[in-house]
């Protein structure tokens, strides 16, 4: 090849190489840089969301991050513009969500008590309802959240989930369709309870449940509704509840009367969903978000409901849980992160995400998404939903309602019954049970009364049922002194403790036996049927004793404990040395 041709070829190759090496975006090649990883220059948006949002939020986050990692703007779906920073969303809850009240307190702690064990520093806090954002502002004394710009992302009214037969019985009795707190209270005040409503196999007791209003959105909204109902009974005709009504002793007494229906409480909706799904023997009605009701009717709970639960949208009004995106105004959130949080907010409002949210039983906030399945009569809901809402009271009023909780909640008499048979020595079950029992006590509210009984070959009453504050030290000392030895007189111990609680027939408290047992009965003089008869006899009372069995370890007599739970219309809790503390912690929230 002549020199000139070689030079020419070289130049052509050089030019071609130069052109190929430099594209319009300054990239070194045209090969896509797609990866599934977080881009190095991404603006990170951390989020903590309500537990029920765990049904969809992880998927929404994943699809958002996928688009980001593909070099796209997730909102437009187009390649990011030059200079546009990628946004990456990080789930601080590992896909589980966090109780709104607990997270709110964690955010406040991050500012006023940063060394507290509960500290949360998200960019976005998505509680179930904006009450928590208002409370956070009130309690921190600063505008942590801009309520006017906290965008709702998924709607769910709080409903009374009630068995269809029960609701129909109420309608038949009153002769009209629109039912609310007024009619539910009529059932409570009826001399023979459900037996005055032509319910086959009726019982006089009315069983109601709601979650803890200090940490649960549904619990808080329900308690506010109860205050409205009690205030109306006492002549309040205004539209917005004030602190004067909340502090009115007659109104508080009214709320106490409603709370008297409570079978037991719970910190989480999860327990109630499983609990009520077992049927009308367990609970008559329970306050839930509408999406929880759909969840149960779709058969997604462990137990399949024996009949349809329906949403009672109280005629007096209810609250919408709008799952607002509260962007935190604190020093750990930069302006860049706030802007990035707006991008994620826009993304979740887009139709595909809203369709995902609707499929999980939430009403879409994007009006372009037409309400459709699962909003069908078969799932116990109406397309129309609630006819009216209650006015959200001012933050100081909500705060006052929370503070009144210890005055209005149904207190409990709890007998803790602990198996100290020899088998409890295995795997240090007794050591873990003692630690769990102490934690259980830590979580109880001071207005309860507590007693302690242990059993092996015989029954040992250790601390007589008395005011929790009075006997707390005695309880601690006795629990620490428990030793494992001998056989298992489970049936005798249960029959004895239930009878003890039954002595106080005028009690208006929750009366509960929490029994922890790791094996079959080996030492009772009585039999299982004696225990079941004792429980069933109590069930005809207006305020029956409930037994909550904890099957501890792999050798626990599940069959016997299940029979006991069924007789008491409760469920067996299963624990082992690794999780017994958590199990008892959950049970403590029942009281």
């Amino acid at each position, binding site marked *: 090849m002549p020199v*000139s*041709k070689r*030079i*020419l070829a070289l*130049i*052509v190759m050089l*030019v071609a190489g*130069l*052109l190929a090496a*430099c*594209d*319009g*975006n*300054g990239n070194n090649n045209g090969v896509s840089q797609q990866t599934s990883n977080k881009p190095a220059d991404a603006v990170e948006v951390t989020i903590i969301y309500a537990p029920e949002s765990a049904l969809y939020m992880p998927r929404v986050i994943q699809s958002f991050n996928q688009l980001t990692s593909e070099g796209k703007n997730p909102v*437009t779906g*187009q390649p990011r*513009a*030059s*200079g*546009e920073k990628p946004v990456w969303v990080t789930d601080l809850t590992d896909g589980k969500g966090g109780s709104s009240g607990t997270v709110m307190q964690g955010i406040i702690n991050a500012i006023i008590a940063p060394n507290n064990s509960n500290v949360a520093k998200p960019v976005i806090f998505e509680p179930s*309802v*904006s*009450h928590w954002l*208002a409370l956070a502002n009130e309690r921190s004394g600063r505008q942590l959240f801009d*309520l*006017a*710009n*906290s*965008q*709702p992302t998924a*709607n769910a*009214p709080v409903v009374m989930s009630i068995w269809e037969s029960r609701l129909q019985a109420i309608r038949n009795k009153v002769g009209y369709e*629109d039912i609310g707190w007024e009619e539910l209270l009529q059932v409570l005040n009826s001399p023979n309870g459900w037996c005055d409503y032509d319910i086959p196999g009726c019982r006089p007791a009315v069983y109601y449940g709601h979650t803890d209003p200090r940490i649960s959105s549904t619990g808080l909204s329900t308690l506010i509704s109860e205050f409205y109902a009690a205030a109306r009974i006492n002549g309040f005709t205004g*539209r917005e509840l004030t602190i004067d009504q909340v502090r009115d002793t007659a109104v508080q007494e009214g709320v106490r009367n409603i709370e008297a229906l409570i079978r037991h409480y719970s910190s989480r909706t999860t327990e109630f969903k499983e609990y009520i799904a077992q049927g009308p023997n367990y609970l008559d009605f329970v306050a839930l978000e509408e999406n929880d009701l759909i969840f149960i009717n779709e058969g997604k709970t462990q137990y399949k409901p024996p009949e349809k639960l329906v949403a009672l949208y109280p*005629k*007096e*009004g209810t609250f*919408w849980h*709008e799952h*607002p995106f509260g962007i935190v105004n604190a020093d750990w959130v930069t302006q860049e992160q706030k802007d990035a949080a*707006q991008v994620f907010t826009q993304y979740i409002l887009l139709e595909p995400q809203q369709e995902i949210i609707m499929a999980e039983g939430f*009403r*879409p*906030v*994007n*009006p*372009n998404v*037409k309400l459709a399945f699962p909003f069908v009569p078969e799932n116990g809901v109406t397309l*129309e*939903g*609630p*006819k*009216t*809402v209650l*006015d*959200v*009271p*001012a*933050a100081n009023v*909500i705060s006052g309602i929370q503070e009144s909780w210890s005055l209005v909640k149904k207190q409990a008499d709890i007998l803790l019954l602990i198996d100290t048979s020899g088998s409890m020595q295995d795997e240090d079950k007794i050591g873990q049970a003692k630690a769990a029992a102490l934690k259980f006590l830590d979580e109880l509210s001071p207005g309860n009364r507590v007693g302690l009984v242990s059993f092996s070959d015989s029954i040992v009453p250790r601390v007589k049922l008395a005011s929790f504050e009075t006997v707390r030290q005695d309880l601690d000392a006795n629990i620490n002194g428990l030793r494992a030895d001998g056989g298992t007189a489970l049936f005798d111990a249960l029959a004895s403790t239930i009878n003890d609680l039954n002595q106080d027939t005028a009690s208006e408290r929750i009366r509960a036996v929490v029994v922890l047992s790791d094996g079959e009965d080996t030492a009772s003089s009585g039999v299982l049927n004696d225990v079941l008869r004792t429980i069933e006899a109590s069930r005809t009372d207006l305020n029956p004793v409930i037994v909550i069995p904890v099957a501890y370890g792999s050798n626990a007599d599940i069959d016997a404990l299940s029979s006991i739970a069924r007789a008491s219309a409760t469920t067996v809790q299963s624990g082992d040395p690794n999780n017994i503390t958590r199990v008892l912690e959950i049970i403590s929230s029942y009281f």
Partner: protein
Amino acid sequence: MRRRGTIFIVLFILIAAAIVGASRFLSSQPPLEFTVAVDPLAQNWLQEAVNSFNNSQPVVNTRRIIFNVTPIDDPVVWQGQHRWTPASHPDAWLAASSLSLRYALSSGLSVSNVTDSLARTPLVWGGYVSRVDVLTTNGARKLDWDLLAPTLANNDNWELLGGQKDWQFVKLGFGQPGNKIGGLAALLSGAASYLKNADLSSAVLSQKAFRDWLLPVVKAKPSFSNSGITGDPALAMASGGPSRIEIALFPEAQWLLNLQGMNNQEEVRLSYPAYQFVLDFPLAIWSDTTPQASDRQTAVGLLNDWLNAEAQQATLPNYGLRPASSEPTADNPLFKFGIPSGIELNPTLGQSITPPSANELSGLIQWVDANR
């Protein structure tokens, strides 16, 4: 001869490569970035227009430029809740109202007008038909301030007004005036209606009689401070139906964007108020004497031309907004859908309100916030 031909080809290739390379080099340089702030009412329209503007590869002084859009509510700007400083400010601002521009100037912000109006949207009354029929006695009267305020002063309970018991209390909707320009415009419409005078330039809005008249209306809307629906009450009305908001005074664009969702709940009826405050969407530029001022001036000028162009103006109705100097046609799906509910393509708007002083309005906003 052959050698000369080779040299010619080599030179040609080198020159072509130089041109292409220079072009590629320039375009691979990071572009000059500018920011345009916008009230959320026009955000989506502006974002689409800016995307197409950026894609048109505009150049200022041989450098490519791009605009980034950042939303901010008008009242937040001039009330100083999100103060722009010489060190931190947008380059341009598409406010929802020239009122905001005027108040921003009087509060000391260094902004100046580029275009008086890029879009328009008037205020519109509306509500779910079942509720409107009760209030207006099946259309015998017109839904407006002079009907609503006295009615609510007498009673705010539907059952006593002739409606259904389970509707409970009347639930009104308008934005939080301290945050949302739509809410502020609604207040101005109310003030003009009370005074029966569209010129509020010397109005005293602190007079007790006016506030007594307005109070039942303010009390009949969801709380501003603790309700999660105040950010976008029209959206709340569409997604929550009459259980949340039954009657409202919103900018027309908010009705149009949410009308489908509202009608899915129940039919909605709309009408234009007698005292009208049209949001006019002026474009402003940040004015200073920094070295960037010249480039900014050119860049904002290019963007202004782009937004004023027929192509961009024609897309406004897709976002519920009216073009600056023409009316939408029935071809537009949003406006077409709104006509049966009461939207008019070329409405006779009521008396146009002249706003009061910033101080007078700020006092009223604070009073409203304190009362709801």
